[in-house]
């Protein structure tokens, strides 16, 4: 079994920053990423709220730069989905992936969150045929067509605005009559002639056989049902934390986020959590990166204490 000082589960903004700090502390560091490196930023067209980039930066380019920076100081990457995380009797951790087993003295859990699904008929059947969670990947296939974006948060408006580059009209379908998104995104969306808002409305069914052709909508206040012809539906209705591996190891809040203190320590010694996975996260890249740095510094303190205890044991043994 390969051994490391610090294993980081998740290669998004929190994980790659934690890796940078851990590797610079000269701790042997490995990052596990089973999906797209960079996590949510990797599919973001333009990141405008990460300091240091006055004109904004492409999310994928930023993710690749973070990866290079972490690797430059010796971080190893394992592009393998983690299947289980266990605590061993000695206090270290075993990480099992579809590629093998690894042991680490400390773990920083940065697995983030995945976009929620609507759970309605047609959603699974038409995924990749007009149902999408990645506007930057798929918007170009709907040039000149009308499309829908579901949701009222930053992701919905940000991605919706991106889609207006291609689509003739973007219908934002939101179940309430106010948006949760940041003011600047709301202002831009209301000013964009290609953005159209459908309030107090939910999608009940996605229609189509080989590709999406229309949506069945229902107004939650009047009960009125309508059909909206669109070629695509982009779904941004919140996220669910990827915390299943933490169950039984660390305490979670009611929403499934890891409970941590200000040093990103979970309830289990040696296990840290950072980024969107942790309770009360700001769910912003810069906050995730900050959490990652804090978690790596805490993990370093934890390992230092273990090393000192081991040395002390050694001194005692020699004296005896």
């Amino acid at each position, binding site marked *: 079994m390969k051994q490391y000082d610090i294993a980081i589960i998740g290669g998004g903004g929190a994980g790659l920053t934690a890796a940078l700090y851990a590797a610079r502390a000269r701790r042997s560091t490995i990052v596990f990423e089973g999906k797209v490196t960079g996590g949510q930023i990797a599919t973001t067209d333009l990141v405008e709220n990460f300091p240091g980039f006055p004109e904004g930066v492409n999310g994928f380019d930023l993710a690749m730069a973070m990866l290079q920076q972490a690797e430059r100081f010796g971080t190893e990457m394992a592009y393998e989905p983690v299947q289980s995380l266990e605590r061993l009797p000695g206090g270290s951790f075993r990480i099992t992936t579809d590629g093998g087993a690894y042991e680490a003295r400390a773990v920083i859990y940065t697995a983030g969150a995945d976009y929620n699904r609507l759970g309605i008929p047609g959603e699974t059947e038409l995924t990749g*045929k007009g149902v999408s969670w990645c506007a930057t990947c798929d918007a170009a296939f709907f040039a000149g067509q009308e499309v829908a974006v579901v949701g009222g948060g930053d992701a919905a408006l940000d991605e919706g605005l991106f889609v207006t580059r291609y689509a003739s009209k973007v219908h934002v379908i939101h179940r309430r009559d106010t948006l949760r998104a940041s003011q600047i995104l709301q202002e831009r969306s209301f000013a964009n002639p290609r953005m159209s808002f459908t309030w107090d409305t939910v999608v009940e069914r996605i229609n189509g056989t080989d590709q999406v052709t229309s949506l069945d909508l229902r107004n939650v206040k009047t009960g009125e049902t309508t059909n909206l012809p669109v070629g695509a539906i982009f779904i941004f209705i919140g996220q669910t934390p990827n915390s299943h591996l933490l169950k039984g190891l660390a305490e979670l809040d009611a929403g499934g986020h890891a409970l941590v203190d200000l040093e990103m320590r979970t309830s289990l010694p040696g296990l840290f959590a950072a980024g969107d996975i942790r309770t009360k996260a700001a769910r912003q890249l810069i906050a995730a990166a900050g959490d990652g740095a804090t978690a790596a510094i805490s993990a370093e303190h934890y390992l230092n204490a273990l090393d000192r205890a081991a040395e002390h044991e050694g001194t005692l043994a020699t004296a005896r």
Partner: protein
Amino acid sequence: MADVRETSDATFTTEVVNGDLPALVDFWAPWCGPCRMVAPIVGELSEEYAGKINFFKLNTDENANVPSKYGIRSIPSLLLFKPGDDKPVATIVGFRPKGDLKKRIDEALA
């Protein structure tokens, strides 16, 4: 050495459908982040399946006919063909880890 050849609307039938081996085609575009993540994995697969499967990539910005024929609405999409058959035996949409891809390929060609 990774061996992933560029294919196009013009050469698709000859190279992919009527090739000597099964063929895996990576539909991609330069602006798609996850496509750039898939590319090195497809490269590694081309080494592991050398002599068993031919590997191709098709730029959906430069080629409209083939993506349209196969109803590509999301990239990355990987389509696997058996020789002489223009209907794919497997369609994999979105980024998947390498282990998943190998499983899908092996099942489709078993």
